[in-house]
């Protein structure tokens, strides 16, 4: 950036001129300066590194939500609704606690397994099987969101839970529940769309010239969604 005529100090200017990529000025110089870095993540496709960095930022967002939930749950003087009872369902005359949430957990883990298989078949250049496995993963994801819609509507319509109040106890229960599970559900929904798009392109053979690392990158996102659910399940539903 000190390459222009009014550059600071003769000495530093002369050392800069010895480097190859400082010769360009203006926008070209800007690009050259930013691109002159050495590669940090060796043997890692750039898309994968970027996905990991995005997931890192997402980790901070979800932790902020869960920390906020922790803070309001610690600080309220009103008893917290018991999740085990709030999310219980009566199926065929049996009152089973948390049953829907358990099914949702198993569905998400199953989808993570099919996603791992899709990555495996992708690297084996078996693109048709990989695409089908990705679509299966997306379908599991869609059924997860469907169950969440059922859960939300049951809570809103039958139980009368609102973000500002609920009949069971502390008002913060509703706000944190809708915030945390809503944001996770949004991630699942976006994942379903993302996987469907990539699966279609894989099926068409758009990535035949690559190593199919694109499936691993999409898989990273999907496994992360499963990972977040592990924490939500532990801290919100079981605690």
């Amino acid at each position: 950036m000190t390459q222009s005529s009014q550059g600071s100090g003769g000495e530093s200017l002369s050392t800069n001129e010895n480097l190859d990529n400082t010769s360009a000025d203006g926008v070209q110089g800007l690009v050259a300066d930013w691109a002159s870095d050495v590669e940090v993540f060796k043997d890692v496709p750039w898309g994968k590194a970027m996905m990991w960095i995005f997931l890192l930022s997402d980790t901070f967002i979800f932790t902020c939500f869960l920390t906020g939930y922790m803070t309001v749950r610690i600080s309220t003087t009103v008893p917290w609704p018991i999740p085990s009872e709030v999310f219980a369902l009566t199926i065929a005359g049996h009152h089973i606690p948390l049953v829907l949430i358990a099914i949702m957990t198993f569905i998400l883990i199953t989808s993570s397994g099919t996603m791992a298989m899709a990555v495996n078949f992708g690297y084996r250049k078996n693109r048709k099987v990989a695409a089908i496995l990705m679509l299966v993963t997306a379908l599991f994801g869609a059924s997860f969101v469907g169950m969440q819609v059922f859960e939300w509507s049951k809570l809103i319509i039958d139980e009368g839970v609102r973000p500002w109040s609920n009949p069971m106890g502390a008002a913060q229960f509703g706000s944190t529940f809708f915030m945390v599970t809503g944001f996770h559900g949004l991630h699942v929904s976006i994942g379903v769309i993302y996987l469907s798009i990539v699966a279609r392109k894989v099926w068409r053979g758009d990535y035949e010239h690559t190593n199919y690392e694109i499936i691993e990158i999409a898989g990273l996102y999907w496994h992360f969604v499963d990972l977040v659910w592990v924490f939500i399940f532990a801290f919100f539903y079981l605690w």
Partner: protein
Amino acid sequence: MEHAEGQQQHPVGLYFKVWILLFVLSTFSYLVDYLEFQGYLRWTLIIVFMLLKAGFIVAIFMHMVWERMALVCAILLPPLALGVLISLMAIEGDTTFLIRSIVFGQEQQQSQCLEQSQECEHSEG
């Protein structure tokens, strides 16, 4: 195990084993609730099963054990800072709870006094 640049090709059997393991661990964490464990036993079991599940997902499904140290450190070290946030907010939450207990307790006492409409001054002292 790696074949080409940046490629993560691992035996299918390993994925299946981890997959089954995640199912078992999820069943265990559900049983914690179903069998109605309470107190420190419940919280310890929840945390243990949660960390095991998260660890296997990140290590095997997300291929973290096969990545180079540069990437592993770049992704797994920054979240440690979140521990500071969590501990600070836990302390903050406890303080808020304490203050609320005192203030709300007093308010309750005062409203009870107003209902009885006498002897308030004495009970305050």
